[in-house]
């Protein structure tokens, strides 16, 4: 087993409180098992502002994102990402029916239907039907563990009204009266350029989505004036 570096020492001092206490109370004991030069020992013993220089060296060398695997344990399982399951989106449509019967007044009933929803326009209702009440149901799987025996998956679900308006998307509808966002950065969230770019993002596949998102950022910042 290789001896740890000064960076390994600093990482462990963050993650392991017992070791941190030892490093503060009895630094020479904490140094055992670490390959430190005289300057590093002196800095880590004094624990003064020069520690920042050691941290800075780690950032410059990119070591902050490559912690020693023997300290973390299951290093191999961390590098392979588990499969990502797609979100399921459904459109729930309720069409009201008013019927008369022998009892006084009328009776209201609903015809319910469930449709796959891709995130764009809602599927057309049948002609002649009254206005429907529409809700979007989102079922999002999250892979908790991926082993040879199988996946451990949890699901979360949400339901929200389907907005009628620009793009027929839940988040696109209410912005028309305000061209800019409420943030101090004044993004053109309701510009045609931004809406068009957002649709292009949604229509893109994974290989081109990043570039489409950069186009959307540009549209958000410049609005329609620079189309």
């Amino acid at each position, binding site marked *: 087993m290789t001896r740890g570096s000064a960076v390994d020492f600093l990482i462990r001092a963050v993650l392991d409180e017992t070791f941190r206490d030892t490093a503060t109370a009895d630094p020479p004991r904490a140094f055992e098992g670490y390959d430190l030069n005289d300057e590093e020992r002196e800095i880590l013993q004094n624990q003064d502002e020069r520690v920042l220089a050691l941290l800075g060296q780690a950032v410059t060398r990119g070591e902050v994102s490559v912690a020693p695997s023997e300290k*973390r344990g299951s290093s191999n399982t961390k590098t392979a990402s588990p499969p990502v399951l797609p979100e399921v989106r459904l459109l729930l449509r309720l069409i009201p029916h008013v019927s008369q019967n022998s009892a006084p007044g009328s009776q209201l009933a609903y015809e319910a239907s469930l449709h796959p929803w891709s995130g764009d326009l809602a599927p057309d209702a049948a002609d002649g039907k009254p206005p429907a009440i529409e809700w979007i149901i989102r079922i999002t799987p999250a892979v908790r563990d991926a082993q040879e025996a199988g996946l451990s998956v949890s699901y979360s679900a949400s339901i929200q009204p389907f907005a009628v308006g620009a793009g027929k998307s839940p988040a696109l509808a209410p912005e028309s009266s305000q061209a800019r966002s409420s943030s101090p950065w004044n993004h053109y969230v309701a510009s045609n350029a931004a809406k068009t770019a957002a649709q292009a993002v949604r229509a893109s596949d994974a290989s081109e989505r990043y570039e489409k998102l950069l186009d959307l950022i540009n549209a958000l910042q410049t609005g329609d004036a620079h189309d």
Partner: protein
Amino acid sequence: MIDIYIVGLGVLNIDQITRETERALRRSNEVLYVDTGVATQAYLEGLCPRITSLFQTSYTESGERLNAYHHMAARVLDAALDHPPVTFAMHGHPIVGAYAPFLIRDLAGLLALRVRVLPGVSAMDCLFAELMVDPCVAGMQMYEATDLLLRRRSLQPDVPALIWQIGNLETTLHTMRVSKPERLERLRSHLLRFYPPRHVVTAFYSTPHPLMPSTVHRFAADDLCDYAHLLHPGFTLFIPAASERPIEDFELLRQIDSVEHLRRITHESAGRQSPADTDSPRPEGRV
């Protein structure tokens, strides 16, 4: 159901992460983060199966910081569209001195993704604690250093001031280079319009590591340029009040200790909800 959590990791490496942030991290399918804490990645790997550092791929020496923010936002949205929920985790407080979260929030709105922002411990919180500053005593004015100069904002010398990002002064570009004294000359001149030259100010850098103390430099405002080489981008300048504003409303001064006045300005029954409580929008979801 949240698609994107935007969270702050605090300043002191992992010790200042809140429990609600930790829950968000555990719930995420990917955590994309911008934090140079030495143990951040090792810590995050214990909570989430997919960890992506955006620091190295975002910043380039002498490159536009704006481009770095665009890259961060695009990467986070890309991940959120592919495998939600994801977390975008930043050093400190995610909304303080950071543009990418605003961009992500507005992009998410256009893409029908839901965002929740969770607060983090900022450099300001650390400064309050270590320098024992209570902003309720004499108030607090705070400005970003370059913006202070661009707009030639006035400073009230009777109100403590907090000047953010003095180490990033006078540039929109990213750099790790050490500042020259000239870099701080314009700021020094601006401060001396409002403060006496020998008024003592404090440059404060909150420690990012438990084995290191915070860095505190106290010096006269007139000597600011002499400290240029020490003031890296992590420093905040705290300027205590140079004078005290006298009380002008003596009628109110008499009333604040008066039971009769208290009864005049309050209802008889206790425990009423304030309008702020009743009107506040409820959070979209619990983490």
